[in-house]
């Protein structure tokens, strides 16, 4: 009897150790995945890094046929689409954050709006792209004819519009949480001094949440930089550098993600492939850094 019990607890002990080891192994696996991603990207883009050096980033010509690779058109395209989208989306995401965080935090109307915001984030990007291609593009084409630029329809501006809708939820939902965290004694104090609601928002809530809202914008930006499918379908995929600012905004272009999506399976020689992967490496670094800064700000904010 004694012996049996001892055996049982021994086998349980063994299981306990195994279980703990599994937990540790899975956490190590995560680290290995990230290291593996980094190693693969660097290894596969190494030929291109070695051959082209840092000049790759501002090389203006991307011509796989004559083996000339420069990332400049895609860097410009990526930054342009992301920042236009960001500028369009900020008023909306801030308004949603203020409305749901301060004016109307509870009730059916705020639930409705909150669900709508979550739905915007849930719709797959391929559906945004498809809709944009068939509904938004003709509308933009008419608009471009009215303002007197070449009526491509597709292009940087069209992608930015769709992108703006897609990234609103990221900044908005974080903003709602942060604005709700503003301590009410601060707000009550301002009201007691006779401040109106606008003044409370302007001089109490906004200064208090500024860094957190900025972090939300960074997360949105990270999303916009890496977004692939909707942009690929709408941007027009031209690797030439536009000759004027007007054409750069309204004409077709290419982003780092879209050029990879379009040309990766067509890359027929190793230098071409390697240059595309180097674009992926750049994209990886940029989005990771932006995301980590955003996350760091949020952790700092919520810990205070």
């Amino acid at each position, binding site marked *: 009897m004694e012996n049996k019990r001892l055996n049982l607890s021994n086998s349980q002990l063994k299981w306990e150790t195994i279980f703990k080891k599994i937990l540790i192994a899975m956490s190590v*696996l995560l680290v290995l995945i990230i290291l593996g991603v980094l190693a693969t990207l660097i290894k596969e883009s190494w030929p291109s890094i070695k051959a082209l050096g840092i000049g790759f980033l501002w090389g203006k010509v991307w011509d796989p046929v004559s083996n000339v690779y420069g990332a400049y058109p895609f860097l410009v395209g990526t930054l342009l689409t992301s920042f236009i989208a960001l500028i369009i989306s900020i008023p909306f995401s801030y*308004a949603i954050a203020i409305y749901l965080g301060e004016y109307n935090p509870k009730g059916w109307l705020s639930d409705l709006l909150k669900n709508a915001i979550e739905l915007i984030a849930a719709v797959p990007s*391929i*559906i945004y792209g498809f809709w944009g291609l068939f509904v938004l593009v003709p509308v933009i084409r008419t608009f471009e004819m009215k303002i007197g630029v070449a009526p491509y329809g597709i292009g940087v501006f069209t992608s930015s519009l769709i992108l703006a809708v897609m990234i609103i939820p990221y900044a908005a939902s974080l903003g709602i949480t942060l604005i709700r965290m503003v301590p009410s004694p601060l707000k009550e104090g301002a009201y007691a001094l006779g401040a109106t609601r606008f003044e409370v928002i302007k001089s109490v809530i906004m200064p208090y949440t500024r860094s957190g809202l900025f972090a939300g914008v960074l997360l949105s930006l990270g999303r916009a930089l*890496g977004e692939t499918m909707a942009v690929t379908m709408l941007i027009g995929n031209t690797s030439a550098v536009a000759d004027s600012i007007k054409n750069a905004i309204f004409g077709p272009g290419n982003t780092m993600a879209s050029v990879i999506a379009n040309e990766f399976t067509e890359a027929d020689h190793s230098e071409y492939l390697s240059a595309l992967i180097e674009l992926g490496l750049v994209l990886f670094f940029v989005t*990771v850094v*932006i995301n980590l800064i955003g996350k760091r700000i949020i952790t700092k904010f919520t810990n205070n």
Partner: protein
Amino acid sequence: MEAKIGFRNTKSVIFKGIIVFFAFIMVVPLMIILLYIIKQGIFQVNWHFLTNVPAPVGEPGGGIVNALVGSFLMVLMAAVVAIPVGMAAGIYLSENPRTKLAYYSGLCVDILQGVPSIVVGIVVYFWIVKPLGTFSAISGSVALAIMMLPIVIRSTEQTLKLLPDSLKEAALSLGVPYHRVILKVIVPCGFAGILSGITLSIARVIGETAPLLFTAFGNPYLSTSITKPMESLPHLIFTYATSPYDDWHNLAWGASFILLMFVLILNIVTKVITRKWKVQL
């Protein structure tokens, strides 16, 4: 000097008006997009559509069964891998928040959450597609599993962190071994939170196209072999939406409608779970 109170009040009201306007105007494009997809897609869907492979150009009819089966199989395989791994890592992070490993793997979760999906596609191409020499469903699943991991891990970690320590202590004081405490007490208590994380992650990857472009690739025929290329709903939409034929566009609208319904249902399920058990994500 001080502005009149009437003026300040008016300013406050106007500001509120602007905020309400900007907050609600966002619902308009969402509604336009959803209604358009439903309008274009709903009449494409019938039994024939759901049980046939796409027809060649010029032939009427055709369906999306290859994409339905493909999406289902690939997401299923991804879930089978990502859920246990993600839960184990999540349990580790919530149980040992202060170790060095927890710091680094937490950092990796943050990084993984921000990695663009197209980059995941590239990497899995070199990990699996190139050694095997062919595009395959299994490589698509691996890419999707990597995309699922951070959501599963974070929801497991957050849910378990909210549970009171007394639960665990009570079980341990009764002499229950550690693994049974976790599996029979802690995980069941946080089950709803973990489950909502899982449904959310599935809703997220079922619409992912970019990681599948270079991995599962796509296949116009019905295939259930995991070492061969396989079609998926989002990839089918991409291929047929960018084709020049009206018949194929209609097929893509129907597929978009189905995909949208899947995503909506999964999101509603998540909502119901979180509301019923009052989980906070």
